[in-house]
């Protein structure tokens, strides 16, 4: 087996970003009039700056509809950008057109939220994989069949599955097929968009362990999107918390859940039900409504729902504030809260 490991394993000593986003905006026109300006914009990605370090698995959590998928798709240039820059391995790719983007496509892949919908129902697994393999220059077209089998074996599927159609697989298997497809192009970077949220825990565990194995084997970089905090810790070393189109906190995953620095992170954490009947707890309830992405609250987007808000929060948007290397938080009063221990568990 000739593993297509082209990059020599980098020592994690010098973490350098594989992808870096700078003030990225991706807005959608909500009511496009016949002529004239768009009146309302939906702003699922609103001024995001973030580095994804080579070889890491970055988690992205946040409530449903806050813009996680859009961010993932924006990085892969699957959704039109409004402004900002994206660098991939140092190359700016935010303004490349479709053909200029072609060489980058195989290197960045995505596993979509809904595995069934992301596989063409009229194509069998072989064709699905072949389609991606064509883009992998290192594989001779003659060997596509063997390569497909190899990919399937990577994701724990058997050769006879090659000739089946997506609908003949269970959700978890479909998810694995899309992972196989993502791997077929020999990518450096994969976005997992809630790749496990539709699955039951057993199947979810299956997919996650697969992801981890592959990451080690092929030294891949992941962006792992989910709104389930419990699996974040399993999968990711670093986690970004997203709220209403913005990233409010980035931290080391263990630290994040032990000692959140942003009130929203804390609220999320409190609301997670723990699968242990002996540790029944009062689930934290976040008051207020999910903000509209078209007109997010002024100042800190989270302030209407924050227990610790002060006047400043309503007026001024907090700037990111570095707490550790590669970690930062966007809250005016995070230091104060930290000192008070207001966000600690009781």
């Amino acid at each position, binding site marked *: 087996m000739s593993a297509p490991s082209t990059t020599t394993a980098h020592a994690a000593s010098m973490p350098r970003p594989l992808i870096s986003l700078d003030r990225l905006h991706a807005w959608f026109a909500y009511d496009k009039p016949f002529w004239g300006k768009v009146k309302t914009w939906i702003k699922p990605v609103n001024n995001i700056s973030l580095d994804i370090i080579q070889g890491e698995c970055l988690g992205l959590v946040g409530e449903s509809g806050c813009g996680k998928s859009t961010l993932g*798709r924006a990085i892969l240039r*699957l959704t039109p950008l409004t402004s900002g820059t994206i660098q991939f391995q140092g190359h700016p790719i935010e303004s490349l057109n479709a053909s200029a983007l072609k060489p980058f496509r*195989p290197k960045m892949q995505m596993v979509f939220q809904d595995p069934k919908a992301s596989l063409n129902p009229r194509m069998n697994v072989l064709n699905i994989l072949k389609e991606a393999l064509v883009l992998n220059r290192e594989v001779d077209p003659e060997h596509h069949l*063997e390569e497909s*089998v190899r990919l399937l074996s990577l994701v724990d599927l058997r050769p006879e599955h*090659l000739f089946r159609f997506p609908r003949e697989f269970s959700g978890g298997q479909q998810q694995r097929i899309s992972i196989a497809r993502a791997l077929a192009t020999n990518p450096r970077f994969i976005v997992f968009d809630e790749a496990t949220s539709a699955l039951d825990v057993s199947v979810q565990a299956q997919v996650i362990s697969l992801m981890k194995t592959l990451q080690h084997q092929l030294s891949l970089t992941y962006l792992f999107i989910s709104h389930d905090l419990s699996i974040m810790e399993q999968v990711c070393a670093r986690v970004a918390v997203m709220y209403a189109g913005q990233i409010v906190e980035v931290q080391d995953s263990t630290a994040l859940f032990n000692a959140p620095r942003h009130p929203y992170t804390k609220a999320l954490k409190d609301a997670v039900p723990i699968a242990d009947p002996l540790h029944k707890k009062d689930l934290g309830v976040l008051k207020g409504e999910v903000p509209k992405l078209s007109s997010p609250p002024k100042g800190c987007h989270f302030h209407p729902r924050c227990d610790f808000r002060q006047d400043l929060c309503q007026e001024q948007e907090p700037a990111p504030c570095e707490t550790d290397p590669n970690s930062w938080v966007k809250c005016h009063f995070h230091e104060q809260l930290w000192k008070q221990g207001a966000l600690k568990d009781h």
Partner: protein
Amino acid sequence: MADNRTLYTDMARAAAREHRQVRWFELKRLLKRKSAGLALIILCMTFAAALFAPWISPYPEQGRGDVNVEHRLLPPSSDYYLGTDIYGRDMLSRVIFGSRISIFGGICIVISAALIGVPLGLWAGYNEGVSGTLIMRVVELFLSFPSTLIGMAISLILGAGWYTAIIALIIPWWPWYTRLVQGEVVSIKHMLYVEAARMLGYGRLTIIFRHLLPNILTPVIVMILLDLGPAIIAIGLLSFLGLGTQAPMADWGLMVWEGAPNILNEWWIAIVPGTAMFIVVIAFNIFGDALKDALDSST
């Protein structure tokens, strides 16, 4: 390696075989519905009649149009099962020969319309930009234009004849396919698998033909089947106005037209082809319906 490959080929064969079995099962289930089976039998018989017209019609030369003046306007009898027309030709033979143009023409119209309309619909559905809008505007233009008028006008230009009738009908027909396909494409193009293909960096044409086309084929095929009836009727309508098939050939519509003035006395001249047309169209309809149900439930 080589062994592996033969192994894979074997596996492919096995999988294909199984797949075919499933298809066969679906077909059987479809035919188990009595009406669909009956419709299919009628259609097969009609096809056979059209194909083997010279051999199965009692008076093939009359079927082709030779007049038989001595036996004009005879009612159905044991010599002429369905009677004779104003030129004394055997109605049965005429109807059998008439099926040729009706059925061939019908198929020709819908297939050509699909061949024109489907790619345009795919393109227009996938590119909602200038080209797509343009196509849809043209489609709307055609749809808003009375199709019978188009048909007639074209027949008038090219001269009446069964082939011009067919051309004249294809022209107002294709926009319906474009419309159907465009709608379907718009509804599936945001599916994740299309996005996945874009993620891989494939261009429009690849996506259109590899990903969109196979997924809209079912409604198109059903529409083709359901359209065959109307197409046969449409040829008949043009012929009815004297703009379609020309003597001595005949399609069913023309025969109804020719027989209509006699309907009070020699009713069989119009009723026989009219009924034939009605039965075949209904058969296409029922079969198309059944196929639709079968295809819908299997995906």
